[in-house]
């Protein structure tokens, strides 16, 4: 259940940034999560709805933008979109190396 740890990190970053900007409250937190980052999105949203209480984001919505996995073939250099590790290159059947899809980022906030 590392999603709760991630939510603690999300809220910490969001509150820090909102305070710096002199905001009174956070309405929306937008995060970008790669499809290969090992995050269960429903658990993330569930944890957020509990952990936001008592913070500047107490009434905030969590918007999750899911970023696709990206693989590159070391053999032929082809790029492909992937949903899982151990995907094969569509061009030459080599094993793709993961080059994207592990992102865990707070992208933006909507604040008052």
């Amino acid at each position, binding site marked *: *259940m*590392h999603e709760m*740890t*991630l939510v*603690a*990190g*999300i*809220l*910490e*970053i*969001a509150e820090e*940034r*909102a305070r710096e*900007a002199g*905001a009174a409250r956070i*309405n929306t937190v937008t*995060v*970008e999560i790669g499809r*290969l*980052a*090992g995050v269960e*999105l429903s658990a*993330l*949203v569930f944890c*957020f*709805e*509990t*952990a*936001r*209480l*008592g*913070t500047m984001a*107490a*009434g*905030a*919505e*969590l*918007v*999750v*933008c*899911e*970023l*696709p996995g*990206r693989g590159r073939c*070391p053999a032929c250099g082809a790029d492909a*979109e992937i949903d*899982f*590790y*151990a995907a094969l290159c569509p061009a030459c059947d080599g*094993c793709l*190396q993961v080059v994207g899809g592990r992102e*865990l*980022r*707070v*992208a*933006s*906030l*909507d*604040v*008052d």
Partner: protein
Amino acid sequence: MCDTCGCNQSPDAVTYRKPGGHDHPHRHGDTEHAHPHEHEHDHDHGHHHDHGHDHGHDHGHDHDHGGGRRLSVEQDILRRNDVVAERNRGWFEGRGVLALNLVSSPGSGKTSLLERTIRDLKGEIPLAVIEGDQQTLNDAERIAAAGAPVLQVNTGFGCHLDAEMVRRALAELAVPSGGVLLIENVGNLVCPALFDLGEHAKVVIISVTEGDDKPQKYPAMFAAASLCVINKTDLLPYVDFDVEACKDAARRVNPALAFVELSATGGEGLDGWYRWLRDRRAAAAR
């Protein structure tokens, strides 16, 4: 509340204990939990949606957005963990310590492998151990009996060690300069893949009593590891486990993964593990 000194700690907080020492719960410094309380508000339900790839982002500017303001943040969620992990890395580097993060599902034989390693190598390589488990001092007691300095981190309900737990453990554990620190993570093939502890390498341990499709089921962990130890090979005649199929599945996730097959209890194959350990230690000392 802590029954030893009366400090106001919750009983499920992370604890740091040595075998024979007193039980003293300490709150994990970086974990702040919001306390649920009576609170009137609209239930805005979070949602997620797919995102087109290679999209642009707003960078470094704020602008008005429907009455409120939009703040561009662009910050890694694990930033704080990763900063502490970098500090740990510096700590290891400054002392010439090789740090290994041992990850596996429960029951793969991590602690047995550590006990055997300590008994076989303690005259040659100074070893110290950080034990991670949700509860109990059991594994730390086994390590202490094998003859290495050890600190038990009980994560309470936590499913993984994080960099801050290791940093705090390092402050209490006598890790010998030029030695090897073995960090036995919580038995879990999912969450520990995500948290950098500052280690030089992750070693994933799988036993032949598990399915040979573990690398396909838990690919993130096999992708993050440098070495895969296949343990309990003495049981191969009795179980349905295809070593080559397991290796092939793991290589598809991580073509650079190295393998050692061994039996921590029977002893066969341990020389390969010790060779890998010596090579990595020499590389860390350079």
